[in-house]
């Protein structure tokens, strides 16, 4: 199977269905905002959303009712404060309650790596002396080293139905290049049944040095060319993170009505990501 080039709307409609476990990865960098917005426009419901750092994109998806659950390790607005929609869902079940599967960064990294490696679980030295195992007994257990007798922490593999990434480039064959901070993107992609990617541009030849992080085209189900697809996150070599947007989001998300009005105006009220970028003034 090789990658299909599809408009984002079609890629999301074809590959993401209600009730799926979906990981939109990218660590601060290369967060697939365009894809998340398209899932909101298509009113996906009952998703289990997996991300190390939910960030604004999951705040928006949770607030718009897309999520049945969240699997994560740090749920704040980086450098700013709370994710108010995530908080409102957990504290007040608004718009509805969501299931919480909470780990540390190390635990999430190991869970993705186990999924990527076809193993049912992974091992770390972690969580000892904390309340996390008691709070989350279904996905934190122990295992004993058969050689040393040491007790270690075991966490189950994450295997998303779909992992969605944003990347700088794809070539015509569907090979995808990610440059810069990649977070757990590689592991999230290799753990998934299906990989869908948005890219800044489709090029004749990837700008990839030897040993670059390239996902082979036959590993990718669909690719959509979406310039600015990570905004207000960033794409190294293309545009910077819009820190002002992250700051401004705090006031928008704090209030349910302000949040809904903003989402209606800029996301559900826009046809696609290009229209979104125009509507928030992010394009010249």
């Amino acid at each position, binding site marked *: 199977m090789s990658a299909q080039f599809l408009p984002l709307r079609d890629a999301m409609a074809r590959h993401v269905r209600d009730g799926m476990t979906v990981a939109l990865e990218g660590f601060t960098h290369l967060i697939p905002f365009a894809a998340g917005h398209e899932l909101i426009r298509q009113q996906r419901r009952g998703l289990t959303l997996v991300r190390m750092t939910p960030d604004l994109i999951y705040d928006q998806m949770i607030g718009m009712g897309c999520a049945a659950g969240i699997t994560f390790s740090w749920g704040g607005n980086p450098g700013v404060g709370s994710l108010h929609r995530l908080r409102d869902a957990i504290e007040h079940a608004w718009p509805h309650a969501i299931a919480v599967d909470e780990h540390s960064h190390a635990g999430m990294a190991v869970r993705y790596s186990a999924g990527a490696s076809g193993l049912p679980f992974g091992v770390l030295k972690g969580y000892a002396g904390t309340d996390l195992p008691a709070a989350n007994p279904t996905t934190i257990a122990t295992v004993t080293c058969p050689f040393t007798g040491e007790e270690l922490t075991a966490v189950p593999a994450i295997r998303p139905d779909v992992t969605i990434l944003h990347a700088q480039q794809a070539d015509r064959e569907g090979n995808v290049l990610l440059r810069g901070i990649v977070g757990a993107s590689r592991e999230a992609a290799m753990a998934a049944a299906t990989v869908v990617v948005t890219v800044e541009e489709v090029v004749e030849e990837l700008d990839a040095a030897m040993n670059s992080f390239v996902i082979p085209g036959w590993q990718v189900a669909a690719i959509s060319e979406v310039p600015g697809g990570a905004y207000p996150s960033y794409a190294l070599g293309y545009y910077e993170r819009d820190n002002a947007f992250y700051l401004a989001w705090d006031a928008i998300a704090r209030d349910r009505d302000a949040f809904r009005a903003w989402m209606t105006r800029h996301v559900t009220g826009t046809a696609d990501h290009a229209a979104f*970028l125009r509507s928030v003034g992010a394009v010249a």
Partner: protein
Amino acid sequence: MTYTPDEMMTVAAARRLKEGAVCFVGIGLPSAACNLARLTHAPGLVLIYESGTVGTRPTVLPLSIGDGELAATARTVVPLPEIFTHYLQAGRVDVGFLGAAQIDRMGDLNSTVIGPYDAPKVRLPGSGGAPEIARHAREVLIVMKQSTRSFVERLDFRTTAGRPGAVITDLGVLEPDAGTRELTLRAMFEGVTVEAVRAACGWPLRVADRLTTIAPPTTTELEVLRALHDRTAKAHAHRVVLTFPS
């Protein structure tokens, strides 16, 4: 020169970092402290941010843990899982910085919830890298402003078994007692009284027999720190506008 409590905390934290140490850095005050140390007494400090950037030398402070500046100035950028396995868990980190919403007298930390876990009054961001930074870094430094709301008798949730080498507050420095490991006031900033420190602590704070006073920031420290913050503010002031080929 006059200075703010934030500046004093940053300087006090920076001074604890030894030349050549490998630091696992978080955003905010720890990032400022590490870069201040790097720009003053410890030019060979190795900064690791959990985003995967190893040996970064940013000219301005990052606003997020994954800013492009960190990647551009790194010796190497690795996948995030390697940071937590090959670097942190394998014992390659000398100093880890932590903060939290709550700390108790043993230095354990809560950054998960206020109230019960299943029905929280306030849902906090959660653990991030903290539990494993606390476990694997050779020394843990905690940086937190003191108040009876944050320095508490009893944590609502133990996110992290903190085992700090020191807790640097806006009033002074607490260190664990050699025997009991209970946090004990060891040093205060200039002009701070023991009563003020005790009043800002939610448990009956132990005080060391010999209390020292921490010297105020030097002119150099303040100048370098303020220049760093100025460069940072300038670099981050502009609104991002995307331009695409037509």
